[in-house]
């Protein structure tokens, strides 16, 4: 395929116009020693028809949630994506535009982001939201950096936090100069004024609902920032981060109208208190007036950002996940307050039903018996969970996500509003079979 429109005449005339005699002249300043001495070892270009065939073949070499009934979660969920979300977020005026540096030409994107920020504040009960970060894990990293910009101290992380998120903290911490300290579940933390941030996840990495308020209260007492990792779609039925005492709330926003996409592009959600707004990473949209007093929207507080603050900036994020935030805004508008609540109820009811049916299978029990959960729960299996997941594929089931817990015999099962009783019953029967 070829997208450059130049005809031979164009090239000739333009070279002349630029005072050049050949295309090579354009590259004359490249020293001979560094010029590429061979044709790139990449196959010849193809037509659109061949391209589509190549990618169709690759896509078909996968077995996705389109073919498998998906009970996998662990931060990415098979919630229903209503057709209006991408019919609208997919409008080319949105997706082919750049970061809104020229606000008068970008009121569309800017206003949607303002609406996004407003809805995230409504969900979390916090005062400010930014306009998106890369994903949930990096949003947590940014939240910790926010806290450490205030007090360059220790970072205490509850063992209930997703292991991939902790991994990310460990990675970025090497550069920022901290090592996340993992706090065992229910352990009494000793928090002094050397602690910058305390992180907890609710529901936790096993789907369990464990109180975080006390931990956050202790953090507050120590003058540290409390950071909650939350599930946006739990907030129709579960208490919002602000109520639990979180100063900063971060989440993986994939569940808000975004497809699974094998892990990305997803949506990093971050909300905080107004007093921390100048330490917040990423773009922030604000309302203002134009010369004639009409309401309009702009990127604001840019003095925080890398392109102005440079090495003093808390974050280096530039390109973010705006399009996913647009999708999330449309999705939340589609849900509405009652839809959000109904969805939460359905998830928890279906998860509860699934837990009952699956635990009725011989040798299967809850990893944390008696601990309440929302839409996700962990099972203890008689065999390594990875093998069981492999066996379930034969029944067209994506049975869940294997956890390291219980020496690899733990399975994390997620149940969204999409999973019907019939599908759950099928799962139970299949599990019994593969464990028989």
């Amino acid at each position, binding site marked *: 395929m070829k997208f450059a429109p130049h005809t031979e005449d164009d090239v000739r005339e333009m070279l002349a116009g630029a005072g050049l005699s050949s295309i090579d002249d354009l590259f004359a300043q490249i020293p001979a020693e560094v010029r590429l001495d061979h044709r790139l070892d990449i196959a010849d*270009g193809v037509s659109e028809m061949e391209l589509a065939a190549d990618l169709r073949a690759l*896509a078909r070499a996968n077995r996705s949630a389109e073919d498998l009934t998906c009970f996998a979660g662990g931060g990415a969920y098979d919630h229903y994506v209503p057709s209006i979300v991408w019919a609208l977020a997919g409008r080319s005026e949105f997706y082919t535009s750049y970061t809104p540096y020229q606000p008068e030409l970008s009121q569309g994107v800017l206003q949607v982001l303002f609406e996004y920020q*407003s809805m995230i504040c409504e969900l979390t009960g916090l005062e400010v939201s930014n306009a998106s970060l890369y994903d949930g894990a990096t949003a947590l990293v940014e939240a910790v950096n926010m806290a450490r910009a205030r007090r360059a101290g220790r970072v205490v992380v509850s063992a209930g936090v997703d292991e991939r998120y902790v991994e990310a903290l460990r990675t970025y911490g090497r550069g920022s100069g901290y090592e996340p300290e993992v706090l065992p579940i229910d352990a009494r933390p000793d928090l002094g004024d050397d602690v910058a941030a305390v992180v907890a996840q609710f529901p936790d990495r096993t789907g369990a609902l464990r109180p975080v308020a006390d931990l956050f209260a202790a953090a507050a007492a120590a003058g540290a920032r409390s950071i909650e990792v939350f599930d946006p779609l739990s907030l129709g039925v579960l208490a919002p981060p602000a109520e639990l005492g979180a100063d900063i709330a971060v989440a993986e926003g994939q569940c808000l109208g975004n497809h699974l996409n094998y892990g990305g592009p997803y949506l990093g959600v971050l909300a905080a208190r107004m007093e921390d707004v100048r330490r917040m990473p990423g773009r922030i949209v604000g309302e203002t007036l134009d010369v004639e007093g009409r309401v309009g929207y702009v990127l604001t507080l840019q003095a925080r950002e890398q392109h102005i603050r440079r090495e003093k900036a808390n974050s280096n994020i530039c390109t973010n996940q705006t399009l996913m935030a647009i999708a999330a805004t449309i999705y939340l508008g589609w849900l*509405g307050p009652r839809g959000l609540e109904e969805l939460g109820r359905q998830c928890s009811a279906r998860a509860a039903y699934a837990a009952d049916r699956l635990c009725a299978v011989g040798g299967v029990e809850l990893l944390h018996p008696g601990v309440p959960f929302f839409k996700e729960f962990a099972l203890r299996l008689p065999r390594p969970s990875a093998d069981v997941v492999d066996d379930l594929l034969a029944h067209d089931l994506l049975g869940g996500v294997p956890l390291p817990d219980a020496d690899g015999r733990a399975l994390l099962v997620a149940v969204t509003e999409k999973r019907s009783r019939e599908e759950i019953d099928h799962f139970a029967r299949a599990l019994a079979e593969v464990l028989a």
Partner: protein
Amino acid sequence: MTTEGAPVRRQGPPTGEGTVRDLSRPGRRASTLGPLDVPDAIVPEAFARRRPADLPEVSEIDLVRHYTRLSQMNYGVDTGFYPLGSCTMKYNPKAAEEVAAFPGFRRLHPLQPHATTQGALELLFRLEAMLCEITGMSRATLQPPAGACGETTGLLIMRAYHEERGRRRTKVIIPDSAHGTNPASVHLGGFQAVPVPSDARGLVDVGALEKLANEDVAGLMLTNPNTLGLFEEEIDDIARIVHDVGGLVYYDGANLNAILGRCRPGDMGFDIVHINTHKTFATPHGGGGPGAGPVGVVEELAPYLPSPTVERADDGSFFLDRDRPRSIGRLHGFNGNFGVLVRAYAYLVAHGADGLKENSELAALNANYLAALVTDDFPLAFPSGRPMHEFVATARDLKERTGMRAMDVAKRMIDLGFHPPTVYFPLVVPEALMVEPTETETKETLEAFASALRRTAEEAGAQPDLLRSAPTTTPVGRLDEARAARHLKLRW
């Protein structure tokens, strides 16, 4: 004629659009869920939300009209020329959108067993190989979701490299013309940013660099062609100087679109390279994101690459390798922006070796042709060098002559039907206008843009109010950014 510079007017009187909340009416709702065919269950009282979230209550048609109209209040590559310097706003192929939407990609869960994701893994494997060939690197990670994250990745690799060798390195050198993410990334990597000045040609002052280079230096970050659109001709010396003190050289790939198939960072002595697929490989910018920032490294640095990497087993099957003891770890929750990488892969396969090379050639041709058309009114900031895929002009003289600033020119360009170029970057250039036309624009478009730009220079003297009061053809006029920052209103 050309349609450029002449966007059409929409129906209806000029007016803004209220927020979706203004449409809200108690009891309205767009969503319907299936019936609950299992016993109801409610969450324990202690954990329950008490007050419902005050989200808008609207019907589906409200949403469709509201967001359709908002989209029409937005300018994209699909509506017109978008010459933002450093951003490479080229045409985003619709074919890439179509293939990325195949359910086999779009509905794939990141934690599925490898047996069910062979197609996705093979795509990533092939993409890594193509990116390595293009940049001259030996391995690459596809995990970073954007260029800035790629920079962090590179700096953490630098850190790990030096630490493993027991060296205490504290400084990273960056040109004063560098993009803001560079110094910010240096800081996040735990280093101190040391600026090296540009010389009269707009290139790294090699003499100054020599003085800065010492045993404290972990490395150097460089964009080449640099942010002035000029090729760093002494790149050999630059790399040597840094290597001689044991430092590593990092390539900021934002301008890779200038040199595809002509030269490679690896052959210039760079050790680490990031690529912005949303620039060079035309994945859509999405109004600010998503992007993807793959990072390639030389063989010696491969062990430090983030975990997991995509590997091929002896039986020919593909898998995600998490057993990487020397890796810097994980920079993203899952496998990076896969959906974006699919588009980048499609772009590379569609073009092939010759197509990519031609893109760079024509990108440079467009930039040089356009520069020649406007230079009388907007001279190049550094006229001694030949710009490559983009050029930085200055409105310095215009300002002295008329008092009109680059910003006024930019806003007036909007009324003339064009998205303005990048302004006030790089910071080393006063009244900078940074223009990157890209290879997908026609000669006619460039000419229409050039005459509009020259017209603003003329008007700046003759009818300055046209510039001062611009834009007047947009849903809102010039917006008060100071007010926005003073009276923070960040939500409804």
